[in-house]
């Protein structure tokens, strides 16, 4: 049984919403989002309970408390120990709904504690000893040519068999 009839789509279209928002700010050329017809697909090579799983986030390392160091803070790629999970990560510079929610619980956007739980219960073989950070970049070229190969290298160094990527 249906709950409601709606003459519109329920999901927010962030492509439409952000285009109209930046147009209202006077930016004439809209951001062009990547679109592909072909999508690569790799099946798991072995059972999940034998796999090492890694997490990738768009959140950044915590901003330094020192004001000078904070001013010099630049978003970079990083690989950090996954355990113990960081108490906080820097998300202020990212595109998310700061009015409706918050990011003070790291597991709400980077579920390192939950992943460790699945490793402990044997659902996965292990969690990667590191998690990986990639900045959200206006430049798709940098994401494709610089960030993506680096994430792949780190995953291979750590013996990761499957990666879960979380965009805020």
């Amino acid at each position, binding site marked *: 049984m249906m709950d409601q009839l709606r003459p519109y789509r329920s999901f927010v279209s962030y492509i439409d919403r952000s285009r109209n928002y930046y147009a*209202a700010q006077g930016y004439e050329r809209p951001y062009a989002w990547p679109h592909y017809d072909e999508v690569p697909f790799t099946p798991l090579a072995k059972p999940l309970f034998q796999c090492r799983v890694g997490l990738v986030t768009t959140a950044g390392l915590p901003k330094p408390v020192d004001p000078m160091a904070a001013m010099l803070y630049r978003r970079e790629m990083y690989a950090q120990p996954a355990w113990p999970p960081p108490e906080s990560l820097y998300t202020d510079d990212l595109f998310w709904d700061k009015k409706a929610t918050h990011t003070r619980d790291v597991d709400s956007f980077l579920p390192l504690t939950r992943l460790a739980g699945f490793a402990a219960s044997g659902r996965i073989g292990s969690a990667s000893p590191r998690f990986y950070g990639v900045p959200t970049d206006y430049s798709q070229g940098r994401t*494709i040519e610089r960030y993506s190969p680096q994430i792949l290298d780190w995953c291979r160094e750590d013996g990761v068999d499957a990666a*879960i990527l979380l965009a805020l």
Partner: protein
Amino acid sequence: MSLVARHLEANGLPTVVMGCARDIVEECGVARFVFTDFPLGNPAGKPGDAGMQQAILGTALDLLERAWMPRTTVQTPYQWPDDAWREDFMRVDESNREELARQGKERRDLQARLKKG
């Protein structure tokens, strides 16, 4: 993030994207996608709700095992307590149109000044 996932898949590493911006991820096209219809910010579940976070990550693990073709999207069953965010986020209407235009101009002027040094 979808671009990174595509690169990993193309190089033999299976992936799942977890996110709340359905159109952006699906336009790009990824192998596996766990979509939660929440405001942007908590793709792994509500803050403080460990049970929900575990269930959503569990769905991503299920997809790793069970998806047999690319562009497999699964929507988790969770709902945000209210729907106000859907209209509010990046809203443009008569109440803020002038303010947005002013903010945009201010930012462009600042960028131009920084460029000049």
